[in-house]
């Protein structure tokens, strides 16, 4: 049960993101409520990150599995989409060849076999979901079956991010090497650079975010969600209770990989480029700090964290480019040290403290007084 003021807040946030921003974009440029194409596009990017953050939060905040390699799944989705968009360019490219430009540079004579199915839009849409899911299934199966957990799993996923980055950088993979895929012209036949297309993409992203949020909420509210939290808090005990933590973790790992892949697929057409730099070690771990800063264990925290941190990044990297990494490092450290349950968790604690102050005269506030980390993690906006 979401408490009433929080439910209103959520609704307001959803309305602003899904309805108000695109409507503002429709207003004439002179209007005070006008939202520029640039801003809308920027927020479109942030919302794709928010989708990814939801999945990561499900994995880390609920199941306690810290993945430092989610950039890989994001990249897989983005590349799947990017490959279709590259093929859609057709012979309108610089070299006027049916092949993507980078293949012409690399003197590839015909389309590699694994590129061909991406000519079909429906195959691409399926691949965006299935490729990250399969990859996560195999990797997760191997990792969780052998009970690789905690720090070990984090390190292994980080190595995965490094390997994927190395591999996607190679020209012989026929994925554009360091330059990645770019210069897209149309999406499903519609010109990409038109404001209406970008607005449509934004709306699709926002709706996807709402659907993803609903999905994650449904998972966390279900029995499976409770088992996930139990796995996070004491995996061994769950095992001894007759559940298989590995299967639950594998399930949530795959779900979060799919969310990351979908986010990537929405990212590619809006930003117009996807390079291996998006799936390396640093971007993967940055994703974790979005969730940490927003508040892990609360779905809304992940969304707010992704938008907030990236908003700050786009401001800092344009105004003070040297400071961004220092700031990011400080953010990592201060979030972990001072607000381990993120901004949302901190706010919830403040709210609890206020409520306790108010009711102290009439009630014994002992249940609320035990606002431990675990309680506010499972609690917050998702208090049942």
């Amino acid at each position, binding site marked *: 049960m979401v408490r009433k003021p929080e439910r209103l807040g959520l609704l307001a946030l959803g309305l602003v993101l899904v309805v108000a921003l695109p409507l503002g974009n429709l207003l004439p440029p002179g209007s005070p409520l006008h939202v520029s194409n640039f801003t809308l596009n920027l927020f479109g990017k942030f919302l794709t990150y928010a989708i990814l953050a939801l999945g990561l939060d499900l994995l880390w905040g609920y199941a306690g599995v810290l993945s430092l390699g989610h950039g890989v799944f994001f990249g897989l989705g983005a590349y799947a989409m990017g490959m279709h968009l590259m093929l859609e360019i057709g012979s309108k490219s610089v070299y006027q060849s049916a092949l993507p430009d980078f293949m012409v540079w690399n003197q590839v004579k015909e389309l590699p076999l694994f590129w061909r199915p991406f000519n079909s839009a429906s195959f691409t849409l399926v691949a965006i979901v299935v490729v990250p899911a399969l990859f996560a299934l195999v990797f997760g199966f191997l990792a969780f079956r052998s009970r690789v957990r905690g720090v070990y799993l984090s390190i292994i996923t980080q190595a995965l991010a490094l390997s994927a980055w*190395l591999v996607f950088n190679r020209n012989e993979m026929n994925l554009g090497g360091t330059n990645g895929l770019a210069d897209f012209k149309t999406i499903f036949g519609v010109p990409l650079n038109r404001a209406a297309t970008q607005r449509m993409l934004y709306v699709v992203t926002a709706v996807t975010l709402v659907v993803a949020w609903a999905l994650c909420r449904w998972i966390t509210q279900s029995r499976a969600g409770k088992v996930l939290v139990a796995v996070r808090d004491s995996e061994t005990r769950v095992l*001894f209770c007759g559940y298989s933590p590995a299967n639950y973790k594998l399930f949530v790992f795959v779900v979060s990989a799919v969310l990351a892949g979908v986010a990537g697929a929405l990212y590619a057409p809006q930003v117009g480029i996807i390079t291996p730099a998006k799936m390396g070690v640093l971007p993967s771990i940055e994703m974790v700090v979005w969730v940490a800063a927003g508040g892990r264990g609360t779905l809304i925290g992940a969304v707010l964290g992704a938008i907030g941190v990236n908003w700050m990044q786009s401001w800092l990297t344009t105004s003070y480019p040297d400071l961004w990494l220092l700031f990011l490092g400080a953010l990592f450290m201060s979030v972990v040290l001072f607000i381990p349950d993120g901004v949302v968790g901190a706010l919830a604690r403040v709210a609890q403290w206020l409520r306790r102050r108010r009711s102290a005269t009439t009630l014994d506030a002992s249940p609320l007084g035990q606002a431990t980390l675990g309680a506010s993690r499972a609690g917050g906006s998702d208090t049942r």
Partner: protein
Amino acid sequence: MRRLLLLLFVAWLAGPPASHAQSPESLKALADLVVDNADKREAAVTVIGGTRDPKWLNFLGALRDGNVYARGKGKDAEVVVGGAKSTRGDAEMIEIVTAYERKPLGAVPLAGLVEIAADRRLRIAIKPFLDADETRLQLASRDPEARRGAALKLAHQADIGAASVVEAAIARETVPNVRHALEEALALIRLASGDASARILAAQALGALHGSGAMPALQRLAADTAATPAEREAARGAIRQIERWGLLVRAVETVFQGASLASILLLMALGLAIVFGLMGVINMAHGELMALGAYSTFVVQNVFRARWPDRFDAYFVVALPVSFAVAALVGVVLERGVIRRLYGRPLETLLLTWGASLIIQQGLRLYFGAANVDVSSPTWLSGGFALMTGLTLPFNRLFIIVLASVSVAAMYWLLFRTNTGLRIRAVTQNRTMSSCLGVRAGWVDATTFALGAGLAGLAGCALTQIGNVGPSLGQNYIVDSFMVVVTGGVGKLLGTILAAAGIGTLNKGIEPALGAVFAKVAILIAVILFLQRRPAGLFATRGRGAEA
């Protein structure tokens, strides 16, 4: 005796033409230089150079440098070499000497001389003669590397005229690898110009010498249809011999490279592993502590260069403890300042140390600049140890192997022979119980973290000798060393050592087949599959707890 005579005879045949000091040909050529005809002048240079007479070669050098003048006009012109210039009154004077014997002719007014300009074509004609002469001078050099270079050059030219010089050089050579290069050069010269039987002998000699530089010449001979079957067979035999040797060299080389990579990984992972074993903390800032060590080395080097340039080679000896100390200091600050607040929450600690690593990295970038800095090797670490033909082990790699071994030995001593080590092992095994028994766990944590960080600094210092030093130095190796720690298991030094050795040799073993990138991917897959069998690493600590 007869053999000696024969040798002398051969030497006489192959030796330089007897001094035709001022033979009619060379004198005529000298006169031709004055003529205004490029073809004739070029021919003249060829004749003069062809004498290989040092005095004539000196003359050619002067000609190239524009110091040769003609005195007089037309057929009576005399060619002279100019020397020091001076002014007497208004006239500019120049000391001149004769072309060949350099007899002084006194100072004459410069205006009375015509410079014989060496144009491009003439200089090109002069160059080979002077080069050949220079190679010969290098053969007599005191620097073995210069002598070896000269031998390689002679082998490449394969000029029969040089055979006697090379023989003489072999006779007085004492450094083995230079001698080897000279013998190869001689055999190659003979292969190029001897008769059939000499070529067979030369081919056999080349086969026995194993030098891969002889391969092209041997292949040419083996494919040469004009050569006799015996010659071609000898060439093929030599090729087989060299190829077999090459396989051996490559095998030894792979082992060495594997050992070298393994010791780099070990140096890096050692500090990481003891901290992980003790506190369950993966220190993501370990790579940046290495970068700090590397930059400390850079600073020490600059101080030495500015203050004690004559003691420059000693800087590295100072840099080792300094980089250890700097990294250890930062490590202690990190541990006492923040990490200890998060004890028992390994994932949070991981994020925290990653944040610290970003700050250190960006700090280094802002202070030292984003570009790589230049750390030069001390002379005693440059060069290498020639183990066998075709394989030289670089001193810097050998040094790292030694440093890693010493570090491991010191670590063993510290952990198993001192009280500090006893406490560290106690806290690693059971923190609560140790605390109850009066071990100050916090103090042990700080010591161990300082030690681990110091080892990282040491690794960074060693890395300056083999790689680039830049702000992102740590990032390049860090994931590899994590893999070593994860594979090795928690808190076991032996596991770390074996994992480093295994990953290092495996990596170098498959690198030739797959390339560097896919070798790394293969290592990751191998580690994941390995963890299927042993989820807690090579040597898991056995305990009674369900989590262990």
